[in-house]
């Protein structure tokens, strides 16, 4: 099979994996070839608007497992291919020289056994690192069930490792990926966390010893193939962050590729809005010090489709506001809807020179559309009162409407009192409807 055909098949079968960024491993060029940027770097954007940073491929899409949600499952009839180690190494290097990519993201189906598969991947990476002296970024997937020795070897070759948790609960994993056990997934995760930590703490005399997964580990779970609530999902994510020192948890909206009685019907639209809300919540947990329990609860287990999680929190915690931009500490400023870390930084900086009014805030680039209802400033010592309706209107996420109203049906609308998908026709109507519903809810 020629390289073009292999690349087509193996890129196509890797495309649903979301855990693909190149950040977290700043490294200068030195004697080898290439370097990495700590901040990550997008080399292109594909037609779906996602950042292309790495050559994202499977080593092979042959697989002995039969995970029901996966197009490469053993029982599915699809064209199969496998790279040769030297082919993949050359391709990576040639793409990198032309600045097409920042490095390689390598995952794989399971051939013969987890250990056999890992050995193949390791061979390819060894060629890239040692023969081509490549110092760019490599993210590799550890195969659940592989032996610790091989996971360790892989960690010395890659900047980041990940093991996909796949399903948000053990029950769903049993149902949909019967050959993968929770333990087989968590064991390498724990090993990677420990290896990474140890490597970070190694004293400077070992500086030349190869580092173990410098950029840490990540994982991904599939959203919408199984019945878990948003609350369950973010609680799991927050647990993973703290127990396994994960750098990122990625959420991947389930896109049906195979008909299966255990899964959503083949024409089900991917729950993109829900995935978006989960990323937002994840971001709030990592960057804004929100806890999962602050964002959702057993009583409201799912995010509001019309509001981003931060606005949702604000609406349910109105007693915290208004916040005085000229006096409030960083953490409190961060909780104001419409004010992000960059705006907070600018406010803290600018207010050292004098008391800030609305115009000053505008000039330093703080967007006031939402924030104005929640702040006090020099020329508005008592805040701005424009009524709940105006406030609610400002808080509604226009993205929710343009994501398509069909998206809303992915949520349990009965619990939130929101209109179902059939009720609204135009954008205008959708916004009005949302305002009314939210007002009723506050």
């Amino acid at each position, binding site marked *: 099979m020629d390289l073009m055909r292999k690349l087509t098949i193996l890129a196509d079968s890797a495309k649903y994996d979301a855990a693909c960024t190149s950040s977290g491993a700043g490294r200068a060029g030195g004697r080898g070839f290439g370097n990495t940027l700590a901040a990550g770097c997008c080399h292109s954007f594909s037609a*779906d608007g996602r950042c292309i940073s790495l050559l994202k491929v499977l080593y092979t899409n042959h697989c002995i497992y039969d995970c029901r949600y996966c197009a490469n499952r053993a029982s599915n009839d699809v064209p199969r291919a496998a790279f040769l180690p030297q082919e993949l190494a050359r391709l990576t290097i040639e793409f990198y020289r032309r*600045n097409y990519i920042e490095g390689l993201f390598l995952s794989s189906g399971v051939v013969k056994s987890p250990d056999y598969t890992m050995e193949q991947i390791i061979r390819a990476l060894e060629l890239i690192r040692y023969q081509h002296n490549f110092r760019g970024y490599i993210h590799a997937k550890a195969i659940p069930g592989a032996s610790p020795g091989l996971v360790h070897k892989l960690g010395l070759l890659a900047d980041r490792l990940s093991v996909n948790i796949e399903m948000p609960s053990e029950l769903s994993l049993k149902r949909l990926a019967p050959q993968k056990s929770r333990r087989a997934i968590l064991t390498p995760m724990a090993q990677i966390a420990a290896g990474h930590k140890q490597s970070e703490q190694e004293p400077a005399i070992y500086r030349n010893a190869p580092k173990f997964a410098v950029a840490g580990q990540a994982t991904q779970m599939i959203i919408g193939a199984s019945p878990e609530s948003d609350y369950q999902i973010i609680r799991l994510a927050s647990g993973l962050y703290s127990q396994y020192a994960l750098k990122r948890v990625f959420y991947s909206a389930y896109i049906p590729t195979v008909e299966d009685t255990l899964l959503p019907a083949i024409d089900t639209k991917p729950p993109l809005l829900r995935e978006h809300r989960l990323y937002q919540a994840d*971001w709030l947990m990592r960057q804004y010090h929100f806890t999962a329990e602050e964002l959702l609860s057993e009583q409201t287990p799912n995010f509001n489709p019309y509001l981003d999680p931060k606005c949702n929190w604000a609406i349910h915690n109105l007693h915290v506001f208004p916040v005085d931009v000229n006096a409030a500490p960083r953490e409190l400023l961060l909780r104001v809807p419409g004010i992000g870390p960059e705006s907070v930084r600018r406010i803290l900086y600018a207010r050292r020179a004098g008391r800030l009014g609305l115009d000053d805030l505008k000039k330093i680039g703080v967007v006031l559309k939402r924030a104005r209802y929640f702040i006090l400033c020099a020329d508005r010592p008592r805040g701005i009162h424009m009524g709940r309706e105006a406030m609610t209107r400002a808080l509604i996420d226009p993205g929710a409407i*343009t994501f398509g109203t069909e998206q809303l049906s992915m949520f349990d609308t009965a619990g939130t009192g929101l209109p179902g998908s059939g009720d609204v026709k135009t954008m205008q109507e959708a916004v009005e409807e949302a305002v009314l519903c939210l007002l009723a809810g506050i």
Partner: protein
Amino acid sequence: MPFGRNLTAAAVEYMYDGGLPGLYSCIYDCVYADEMPAHIRRAGETAFGLFPQKEVATDERRALRVRNAIHDKISPAALELVETVFYSCLKDKELHILRFLLLGFATGPAVMRMPGDARVHALKQAERHFWREQHLLLGFIRFTDYEGFLAAAITPKNYALPFLARHFCERYRHESFMIYDKTHSMALVYKEYKPEFVRLEKFCFNPPPEKEESYRALWKQFYNAIAIEARVNLKCRMTHMHKRYWENMPEMEDALLPGAPPRGAPSQIQERSPRGITDGALIL
């Protein structure tokens, strides 16, 4: 130096050679003549002849005095801001810089904490635009391999080459390469571990060798295969990767052909919102 006071508006245009010491000399002269000129132009720029022109000869000694004054009397950060904005595409950047400096000499280091002031704001904005374009270019530059020599063309709005040089001289340390900035007719040539900037007025690349075509084809194929059809979102792509970068990117070549269907967008697929669905980074 009598810096730090306002200048009297004058119906005159200053001209300088286009370099940073030239501009500093110009600023020195403005201050000593107590003139706030209507324009400061680089030599060669078309003037409309509305005002009499004063040509300022570059004086290294005076330039250094201005530069040191910025560093000592305002702050090193202010100097960095000014020198970044000098390479940016801010319209009338010379006058903006002059106004900022007058304010800075009057207020001292505190000027950097006054982003609300229009004079500071203009520079900050230009600086942000500059770095944003820089960052995007690091990823969007495409090299062609001419049998061992890598060559790339860029068409940036800001003068980016010195900053790109740092990154690529390290990344491709053991290679030879050039980056040709068509907008500013300048090229960075890196050979035998030495970077060099050369002026290149008109330059045409040879057609790429055959092997090159095959890697381009592989890259395009990868680019197309990696997009998820059920998530196609051309607006989102456009906000992240503006069309003006496409001309130098092989994967976007076909999308630029007249009448071509936008790549990866079969007609039955609807566009979705331009807001990021990739990351939470867009929430505020």
